[in-house]
């Protein structure tokens, strides 16, 4: 296991390096950030001055080497569009909001998908099963921003129960963006739970438990559900990473000041250092959570050996 973790850690570092190079190159393909970040009436002298200050007058490999050199020492550089604010400060300000939103969305996904997945398995081929499939289909096919806008319209504008946007109304603020973000994953988790449950429900020990007169509730929730949880649990680990990195649009729609919102601004402004830092951070999240899930999976399922 230790060897496995060591190898995966090496692979992770390599993956992050490759990602950083790709992002570094792709960001620069989009054009000259100075043209966007300086006012329209800035003179050529000012443009050159800023280009020199940001190192954009250097060859691209020099820029990359300098960036990576600083990055490994924890210096992500300065945000060009934000007037030279250190990027670590920007990220530190925004990251907690993204973690809270992703965490809540994860809970929403789990709390909706797991019980419904169990119930549609128990009521296989019934109207309930059919309704569950519809719920899943909507979740998978409707874009999360559309779901978000519909929720906003119904629960904030029509009913007035929740705020439309922002993060200044306490727990109420997080409900709509959390549901909109989490709903997309409900379908996949629900389907996985359903199939896993059906498999377990068909096993001999479950039949034996029923024959011995064990209450149905106990059969399902104590014996079936716990055993059926391994596959959806693995998937939900990955969802955690997806939610953390996939909140870009939802944060924009709901004015949620997280990393996704910052990423959109950075892309619009061609703020290369911020784009690079966020993408690398997102990649690191994803890789770390993948690794953690793999390790956890090995512990949860004794048949798995690395």
């Amino acid at each position: 296991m230790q060897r496995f973790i060591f190898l995966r850690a090496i692979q992770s570092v390599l993956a992050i390096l490759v990602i950083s190079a790709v992002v570094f190159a792709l960001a620069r393909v989009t054009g000259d950030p100075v043209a966007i970040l300086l006012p329209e009436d800035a003179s050529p002298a000012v443009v050159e001055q800023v280009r020199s200050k940001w190192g954009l007058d250097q060859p691209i490999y020099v820029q990359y080497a300098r960036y990576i050199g600083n990055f490994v020492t924890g210096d992500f550089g300065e945000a060009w569009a934000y007037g030279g604010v250190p990027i670590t400060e920007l990220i530190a300000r925004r990251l907690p909001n993204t973690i809270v939103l992703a965490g809540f969305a994860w809970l929403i996904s789990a709390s909706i998908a797991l019980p419904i997945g169990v119930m549609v398995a128990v009521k296989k081929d019934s109207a309930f099963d059919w309704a569950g499939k519809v719920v899943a289909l909507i979740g998978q096919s409707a874009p999360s921003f559309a779901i978000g806008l519909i929720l906003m319209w119904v629960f904030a504008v029509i009913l007035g129960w929740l705020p439309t946007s922002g993060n200044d109304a306490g727990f109420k603020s997080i409900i709509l963006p959390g549901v909109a973000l989490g709903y997309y994953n409900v379908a996949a988790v629900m389907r996985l739970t359903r199939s896993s449950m059906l498999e377990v429900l068909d096993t001999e020990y479950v039949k034996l438990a029923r024959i011995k007169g064990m209450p149905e509730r106990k059969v399902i929730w104590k014996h079936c559900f716990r055993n059926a949880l391994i596959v959806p649990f693995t998937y939900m680990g990955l969802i955690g990473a997806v939610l953390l990195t996939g909140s870009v649009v939802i944060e924009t729609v709901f004015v949620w000041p997280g990393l996704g919102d910052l990423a959109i601004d950075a892309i619009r402004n061609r703020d290369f250092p911020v784009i690079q830092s966020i993408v690398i951070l997102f990649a690191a999240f994803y890789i770390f959570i993948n690794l953690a899930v793999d390790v956890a999976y090995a512990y949860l399922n004794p048949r798995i050996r690395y």
Partner: protein
Amino acid sequence: MSRGLALRTGIVGLLALAVTAAIACGAPAEQEPATSAPAASQQQQPAATQAPAAQAPAQPTATAPLAQPAGMSDRAAGGAAPTVAPAATAVPETTAGEPVQADLRVAITPPYAENLLGWRVGGTNQGMLQPMQEALFQRDYQTWEARPMLAESWSVSADGKEWTIKLRENVPFHHETDTFGVSDFVFSFQLWSHPEAKTGFGDFWHQILGPEGEMRSWEVEDAGTAATVTEVSDNEMVWNMNRPELWIPFYASEATTDPLIYSLDYWQTNGEDAYAANPVGTGPWRHVSYEQGARLEYERAFEDHWRINPDFDTLTFFFAEEDLTRVAMLRAGEADIAEIPRELQGEIVNAGYAITQSTLPAFMVWIGIGGQYLEDRRDPNDPNTNVLVRRAMNHAMDRDALNEAFFDNKMELMANTGWHPTDPSYDPAWEIPAYDPNLSRQLLQEAGYAEGSGPSIEFMAGKLVGVPELTEIAVPMISWMEEVGFTIDAQIGEFQPIRTRYKAREMNSVLWTHRTGFWPAGRNMRVYFVSPTLAGAVYMYEDPHTEDLFNKWQSSVDDQERLNLMKEAGQYMYEQNATIPLGFLFAEFGINPNVIAEYSVNNSYFGGMKGHEYTKVVRN
């Protein structure tokens, strides 16, 4: 378990059905203002026919032709500036009765770069700081005349190089241990022209007041003192400028982007980081809190501000990028004023809200004809350099159809890009180019193109804040041009590639959609229609004749001569069909008439961030 499950399933199903029905049937329980929207002067009328509110709701400004803004003239814009200053912008009279609300909440599109030190981000990003910081001068919201703000009176020498400015006395900064004085101005100008500043006029300030040599600002000077500024007293200074400049009351006014006043004392006592975290100014609003990317909150700064006491106790900007989010915020009662795109305004009005307009046009919209460069970048084979081709382009456009289809006929059509009819150098004889496809075809033939084989042109269109229609209007225009024989390579999308290319002067054989704020012709000339040699910025039109005229205009200190030079430049560009002029647009906002009695200022450049100290609350 199965019965309980079925019961819960039923409840969930019913809830889902109810929500679906609510969406399908509209909004029966939707919050609407108790009073109807104003009926007056609005093209999109509310459907409801309720009685008018007891308190007069906001009256949207009509789009009727404006009175001549004297401030557009050189003289009133600071040409030979008045020695006796006019009065400051009038303070609205207090309305009797209790305000219905203490908090003013404004939902706006966020600045593209946020920083509470405006000089570090420059441009329109500084709009969100205008409630807190003031400038030396103000432009009248109705007439565009120069008004005193922190400068109380001023005079200029005959050679246009020496300005004597008396500052308003005893104006406190928000930290209340310091009042505004000469050193604060000098420190502020050093910030605007600091090497790390991203201010559009940084070079301008360096040119006229900066030290000699490469380095600017306090790299070679102490903060708060400059060799070019003589401090007569704490409230009077004399500028000995490096070159003549008569438009100081324009360049140093809140109508431009940069010249916000900072406190030297606060900076030296607390440092830059503290200033950035908790900035101060002299404005009627004081900074309270800021959540980057989400909101910025102010409160009323003083019991008795020298200029105006706002009707509201607090002012909060909510930064909402998505149009529908801002609509939802207004309709849910979370915002009292919101930027609403034109295509959604009808819905807002039908729901009982009102649309209010800026007092003056806020945007100028036109098509740039690229490639008209001086010799160094000019391609003689570029069809855009042929005046007959440019005339053909102008007559291929059906401006009335554009106005009707995309702007609800609210656009004031323009005859010559950069010149509004209220500008003193405007010529009323200029005509809006008529839509005449046959004339267009004929002109192309005269230019040497066989019928149906017109020039090949690239047409670029990208969205810009304030006029999102820039991409949409490109579609019919391309089709009209193809109809008369042009071959068009259309590139519609983001504006960034356009900016990158025009900054590099690589717009040969390219047309592109553009917009700017509402500015005097001289400012438009400098930014758009001169080469880099004259500190131009967009290089949309370069011609030795207009370069010469602008150069003379810039160094002249004679009012009449300046006016004549600007008129001549305008006439020449009109005859040359230098651009494809389209029109002027007002800034428009959705407001809740139950809360807002009036919000109508000149929103040019800064949109909904501007002028909220003048926003009036509805009172009981």
